[in-house]
């Protein structure tokens, strides 16, 4: 799925990275906890989050997250956008909540980066 398709599905506003909307997104993850993102994400994912600060951008860069979507109409300030531009990480914003936005993408078949390990083990 391309970032442009995700942007349309989630009625996104694009804060930066307009020229990168044709990038491919392989996985999805949603969290406000950056340590969880660092622990359970994979390269090539999109991150949905309600956490709007520079740590979100540093985490995305370190964990090789392709793009970030801020939920519930949250807007990044200019420092955050500048950092994201520097790191070539597109930033988008959706009016949907974290739960709704995740659900919309999950329904299209976008795989999660955070596998439910316990269920997987129980089912063999």
């Amino acid at each position, binding site marked *: 799925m391309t970032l442009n398709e995700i942007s349309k599905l989630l009625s996104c506003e694009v804060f930066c990275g307009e020229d990168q909307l044709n990038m491919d997104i392989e996985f999805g993850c949603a969290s*406000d*906890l*950056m*340590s*969880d*993102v*660092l*622990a*359970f994400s*994979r*390269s090539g994912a999109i991150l949905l989050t309600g*956490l709007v*600060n*520079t*740590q*979100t951008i*540093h*985490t995305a*860069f*370190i*964990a*090789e997250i392709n793009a970030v979507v801020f939920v519930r109409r949250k807007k990044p300030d200019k*420092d955050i956008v500048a950092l994201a531009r520097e790191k070539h990480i597109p930033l988008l914003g959706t009016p949907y909540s974290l739960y709704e936005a995740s659900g919309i993408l999950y329904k299209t078949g976008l795989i999660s980066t955070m*596998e439910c390990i316990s269920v997987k083990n129980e089912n063999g």
Partner: protein
Amino acid sequence: MRMDKSYSQSFEITGNNFFDAGKAATEVKMILKQIGINSDIIRRVAIASYEAEMNVVMYAKRASMTIEISQEKIKIVVDDEGPGIQNIELAMKEGYSTATTEMREMGFGAGMGLPNIKRNADHLKIESEVGKGTKVEFVIELKESARGGSKER
């Protein structure tokens, strides 16, 4: 760039400076990219370095982060001046944390830092003295045969 000899560089990290938190790990990542290290290894080193850097920003006064790269391994040493860790065994448990609300608002402080470093490193050593500081040292092997099996995600 080809690595014929070992390479070393140090970065300063300042406690409580949340705005710059992540810069040292970013520098480490850029160096490894430039050298042409495998992307999976880069990601593991970067994640472990970032968690170690956040620990300094959240808890310590200051620290130096030193990266040493040789043909065989990448070693990171984060030596801080700070409160130290009372109980290292407890601090290694996922979910255990002494973080404040401010730290949690930054998306950290959920008791995942040291466990995340362990998850990504092949070897981890922590030395700490209460009231003085903590030294976190971790190694990621570059030689396939030297690695102790595949790491969990």
